[in-house]
């Protein structure tokens, strides 16, 4: 006996392929929940940073350290990458696999650019400003918060990279679509976190 299959495959993708199957819907729900947990995680890191940001222990202060043009450039790159990931989802909803992969690719490249700037920034601080993990409570809090975000970006790059690979291997299906959607959500999330970092760490560090 042939069996009714869970995936509706009649050659054409449904309008919102990410929500077409129970697995897909589960993924979306599960991922929203996961982001709830991530929010607490970053919330705790922000609280720690705010509690310790004045404790420079005779080491460099935020004001001496930060170079806003560089950070502004990084911010701009990351914001644009969020936009390109929106274009990716739009392409997906139109069923255009290649455009989808292209936009995801651009997102990844921008993410790499952001990460490069961040690594350069950390390198500068450690090499030329004698500002390392052990310098002060402020430095520990700074590297932990910003570094955690950086690690999230790096993970996102690897993840979206793998998904691009899947798109070419398996095409755009009701199985791959939820993954694309969820990874884009993740990317927006780290973008939002960065906006907070930009404000709380850098702007407040310069003026506050």
């Amino acid at each position: 006996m042939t069996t009714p299959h869970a995936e509706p495959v009649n050659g054409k993708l449904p309008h919102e392929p990410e929500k077409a199957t129970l697995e897909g819907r589960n993924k979306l729900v599960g991922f929203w929940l996961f982001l709830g947990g991530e929010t607490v995680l970053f919330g705790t890191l922000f609280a720690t940073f705010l509690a310790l940001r004045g404790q420079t222990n005779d080491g460099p202060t935020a004001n001496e350290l930060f170079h806003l043009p560089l950070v502004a450039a990084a911010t701009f790159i990351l914001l644009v990458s969020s936009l390109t990931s929106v274009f990716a989802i739009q392409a997906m909803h139109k069923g255009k696999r290649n455009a989808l992969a292209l936009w995801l690719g651009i997102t990844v490249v921008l993410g790499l650019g952001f990460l490069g700037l961040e690594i350069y920034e950390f390198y500068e601080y450690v090499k030329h400003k004698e500002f390392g993990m052990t310098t002060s409570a402020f430095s520990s809090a700074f590297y932990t918060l910003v570094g955690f975000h950086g690690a999230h970006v790096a993970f996102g790059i690897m993840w979206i990279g793998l998904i691009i690979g899947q798109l070419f291997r398996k095409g755009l299906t009701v199985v791959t679509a939820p993954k694309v959607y969820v990874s884009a959500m993740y990317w927006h999330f780290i973008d939002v976190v960065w906006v907070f970092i930009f404000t709380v760490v850098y702007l407040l560090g310069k003026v506050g």
Partner: protein
Amino acid sequence: MDWITTVDHKKIAVLYLIAGGFFFGIGGIEAILIRIQLMKPMNDFVSAQVFNELITMHGTTMIFLGVMPIIFALMNAVVPLQIGARDVAFPFVNALGFWTFLFGGLLLNLSWLMGGAPDAGWTSYTPLSGSEYSGTHGVDFYTIGLQIAGLGTLIGGINFLATIITMRAPGMSYMRMPMFTWTTFITSAIILFAFPAITVGLVLLTFDRILGANFFDVAGGGNPVLWQHIFWIFGHPEVYILILPAFGIISEVIPTFARKRLFGYSSMVFATILIAFLGFMVWAHHMFTTGLGTVANALFSISTMLIAVPTGIKIFNWLFTMWGGQIRFTAANLFAVGFVPTFVMGGVTGVMLASAPADFQFHDTYFVVAHFHYVIVGGLVLGLFSGLHYWWPKMFGRVLSETLGKWTFWTFMIGFQLTFFVQHFLGLMGMQRRIVTYLPNQDFDLLNLVSSVGAFLMGVGVIMFLVNIVITTRKPVDAPNDPWEDGRTLEWSIPSPPPEYNFKQTPLVRGIDAYWKEKMAGHTEMTPAEPVGSIHMPSATPLPFVMSVGIFIAGLGLMFSKDDFGNAFMNGLFNNYIVVIIGLLITFGAMALRSLYDDHGWHIEPEDQDEKGVRT
């Protein structure tokens, strides 16, 4: 092999039960050793260092590796059945959660064999837990072991949340969910919002210890009280992670054996949500004595006492459920009924502690020890025993011996009261907690002896339970669907143990206590909500196990990354983070495999759908 690759929630439940039971045994032995040391004044049974390790590991093991996994075992075994689901939302993630918990727990306990267990108390207060005062790798095992185990708990919680949100059978609205499912839902939500805080706390402590960061080190500008805030923002909700499932169990067992529906169902739901919400507001009641100031103390004091209101609602609802019911005192119900007064007493001492001025006297005395054991042992552990006796036939197809169960109850209960009742007085008389010994003739001698004797008696109770399990396992698997005959919820409408796919046809739910409702309407089975058809199942996979092994290796590598092994090869491996990298490569490699090769699962065809139960 089957057990390593399984993604079936019922088998994962059994794995949680075995592993949790194992760690519970270790924690129990540690407790007995503590009580032997404190049995008489000026005892030198163990050294002060070993004593510190024992109390630290006892608390840590019991909470994170003993009772929580047993809670997870019951949740895994029961919740999908109660909501009429064939599976959980993420079977793969479910298995991953179990394996990371297990490997985290193993890592933590390896510390006994590898140069010293954690010794800074289960709360690991800084600076006591900093490298200066805790020079062995003990606290590193704590931070990294708990981190890994906590990861498992977190993803387990997300899985339960998603399962309950998306997989309920047709007709099962939120306000028709059984209470145990409700408490699982709320507990998982607390896990989701509390565990990331301790994740961060553990990372910060790890960085302080291994990378020389300054979060909690005053000399570098850090702040030790910050650790207490982070710990208790997690830690207080954690106590509700523990107790809410017990509330759920009691709310299932009492109605079944009183042959009445739960009194005040909606108020129970509401109280559960309220408790969870308030649970996040009161963390600083553990910190009254750190000098937060009178305003903060007053606010936290009041918000803490507020929790007594929804808790009281629950207590009265249980009493009203029993009121006028046809109560049967089965072993499961004995534990449930015994739970109520003991838990009330723990709540009362809690309110006493919540009064900030009084807490200045009680803090860090045996009064606190008595309080939290009344709620955790007298509450949660009694609840777990109740739940295990109640659902054992459903999980394994065999009914536990009632006689032995009742013996277990009485020995455990009497032992428990002997152990902890007197500790209230020890505390009021000024005996500090976490001291290795005390002077004779300060009125501590007799009460400590009583307490130790009680602890042995509890040990006997636990052994009786194990004997019961062994005897029961020899019996044939012949429990009927509904061995208590008054089962009210969906799990009792299917065979014991349930077949791999749980429900041949998804049931149609027509009210609270869905199965009872059908029985009252004269039916023997649930009305199906779908025709008989092929059932889709996820395939077994070793990847969760492999990923957890990878994390375990990375954790070990990180812990020893600064050590001098006196051996160039080992130094090279560890000091250059090569072990860490190997571990992470294993984990990420497994993740990549998972992502590249889709698991299409398999199908069970209708003609194969008649066999009873999974073999366990």
